[in-house]
């Protein structure tokens, strides 16, 4: 069996042209917005600030030594959690650019967007004339860093993948953005919340710790292991993760859920998928279903390493204490 192409070059050209034509028409039809990029014009016309600021060297999450203005005036955040943190620091006036995924607080969506989290537009960033771009370390490809540096745009990377790193990030962002005190306050709020939880959990004792399944998405069933931010938060709130110790985000199936039969199932509703409750209620023999412990907590409270982590920790603790106080004897009886 062979494939041989009998098309004459002219036919091939015609076909190719038609395809291109169809593609272009499709683009024109679908996205009238992309030719009217008026939003960038004002940003581009802002002259560079003549004021010279004092500069300090910071070490970022990639271990780079970054020389930054002590008071940056035009900041682009390429990380949703950083955007949230900047608002929590009260430094939102400095923020000139965000990503499409920076949806909290709601007013962040009014800022100029430079594209998606994983594929920001360098031109859009450049046109905003930022004096600081904050990027997630795992999104900072060498090519992107190089390009931004060639454009003389300072880049600061963050990598908050744990509670400790989140606290440090809040403190560091305060220092980088010239609001050190606010950063320290934000960081110590989270530290205090964690310390308080630790005390509470210690008072409650280890035998009151229910076994918890933390789901990230349902179809397929992806769960948060122990070696993740939500997993760490769960441990902090006094729950025992049913996932294999050391795991990150394994894909599970219902059979595994039935086999491990957790006391509590925590799910985050996502648009476009079946509701977590309906998904698990199909299995009446699950202990969490029988005892009404299939609970929804917003994904961003658990998965975004920003100021709302505290809400996530409190919600987790609440779920756990509720489960223990409503059905204490059952949970204690099922410890393995």
């Amino acid at each position, binding site marked *: 069996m062979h494939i041989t192409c009998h*098309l004459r070059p002219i036919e091939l050209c015609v*076909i190719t042209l038609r395809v291109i034509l*169809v593609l272009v028409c499709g683009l024109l039809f679908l996205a009238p917005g992309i030719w009217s990029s008026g939003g960038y014009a004002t940003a581009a016309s802002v002259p560079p600030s003549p004021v010279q600021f004092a500069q300090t060297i910071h070490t970022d999450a990639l271990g780079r030594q970054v020389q930054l203005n002590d008071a940056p005036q035009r900041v682009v955040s390429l990380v949703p959690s950083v955007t949230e943190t900047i608002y929590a620091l009260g430094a939102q006036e400095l923020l000139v650019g965000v990503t499409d995924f920076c*949806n909290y607080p709601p007013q962040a969506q009014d800022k100029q967007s430079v594209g998606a989290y994983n594929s920001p537009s360098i031109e859009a960033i450049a046109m905003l004339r930022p004096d600081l771009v904050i990027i997630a370390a795992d999104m900072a490809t060498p090519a992107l860093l190089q390009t931004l540096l060639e454009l003389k745009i300072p880049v600061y990377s963050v990598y908050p993948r744990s509670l400790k790193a989140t606290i440090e990030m809040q403190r560091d962002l305060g220092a980088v953005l010239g609001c050190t005190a606010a950063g320290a306050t934000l960081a110590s709020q989270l530290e205090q919340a964690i310390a308080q939880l630790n005390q509470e959990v210690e008072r409650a004792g280890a035998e009151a710790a229910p076994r918890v399944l933390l789901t990230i*998405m349902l*179809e397929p069933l992806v769960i948060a292991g122990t070696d993740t931010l939500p997993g760490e938060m769960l441990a902090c709130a006094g729950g025992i993760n049913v996932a294999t110790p050391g795991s990150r985000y394994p894909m599970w199936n219902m059979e595994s859920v*039935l*086999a491990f039969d957790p006391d509590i199932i925590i799910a985050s509703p996502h*648009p476009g998928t079946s509701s977590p409750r309906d998904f698990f209620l199909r299995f009446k023999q699950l202990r969490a279903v029988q005892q009404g412990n299939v609970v929804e907590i917003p994904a961003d409270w658990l998965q975004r390493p920003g100021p709302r982590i505290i809400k996530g920790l409190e919600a987790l603790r609440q779920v756990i204490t509720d489960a223990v106080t409503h059905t204490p004897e059952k949970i204690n009886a099922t410890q393995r």
Partner: protein
Amino acid sequence: MRPSVRHTYLWLPLCLLFLGGAVVAGLMYGTVPLTPSELVDILLHPQSSGLKSTVVWQLRLPRVGLAALVGMALAVSGTVFQAVLRNPLADPYILGVSGGAALGAVLALTFFSVQSYTVPLLAFSGALLALFLVYLVARAHQAATHTLILAGVMVGSLCTAVLMFLLLYAPADPMRNALFWLAGNLARGEERWLLYGAGVCVILVLLLWSRAGLLDVFTQGEDVAADLGVDIGRERLFLFCAAGLLVAIAVALAGLVGFVGLVVPHAIRLLWGAGHMRLIPAAAIIGAGFLVGADALARTVLAPAEVPVGVVTALVGAPFFLYLLRLRGR
């Protein structure tokens, strides 16, 4: 290939043995360990409750059924596309079906409400629409097979381009769901859908089997077919519709599961020759068994976690196929 193997009637019992073994493995292995006697006991007492019974009856059986159905549909449609297009690289998704289905699924996930049937339904429609588009183009060109393939690739690219464009606008969650959906998933066997799908698929496979002789003629080339008095346009339309429908059903039920439709037909040709009278039923049975077995492996190796089934099909299938190629090369 040694003719002695090819011309025996051993192929049918061998195929059935393979499928049977895969089904038993699919029912026995997983996060919850089962012994053979436990499995027999559970299967003989469908009314009993308890963890193991639930696991077998509510989870593993639908999943094994779905894997078998999808494996059969993909292997048979792959066989037909390879014969009609006379191209060894043809797989069930070659005529833009995957692109169309993906686009439909992403549309459903991005713009429609939370309903369990919107995604399969739109994926199904997308796949059929892509096939229809390809066939429109092909008819207009009084198509040779390579025109069909080119049209398929182009329609597929077009769908992918539109899909990428949509994903730029889609919020994070639907996008993530869509990407996972595209990777293929055998976990959501809804029994009602499964039964309808199985009914239609079996009818389509039997219909295609009844055209085995015709497929043999197509393999010789369309000129030969025309000389033999075959109405090529009409027959090809029929074969396309039947095979396309099979793929569309498979995609709607399980997303895009790779490798089965490409490799199973070739493996069977290498083992038992290219006659479609034997090739189609063998592809149906081996395809079903292969995907059931691969899924059992995918659920077991990292239990309680699982591996995407597409990884296993390629990881197990590719070396075996290379071995067969080497065997024939001697």
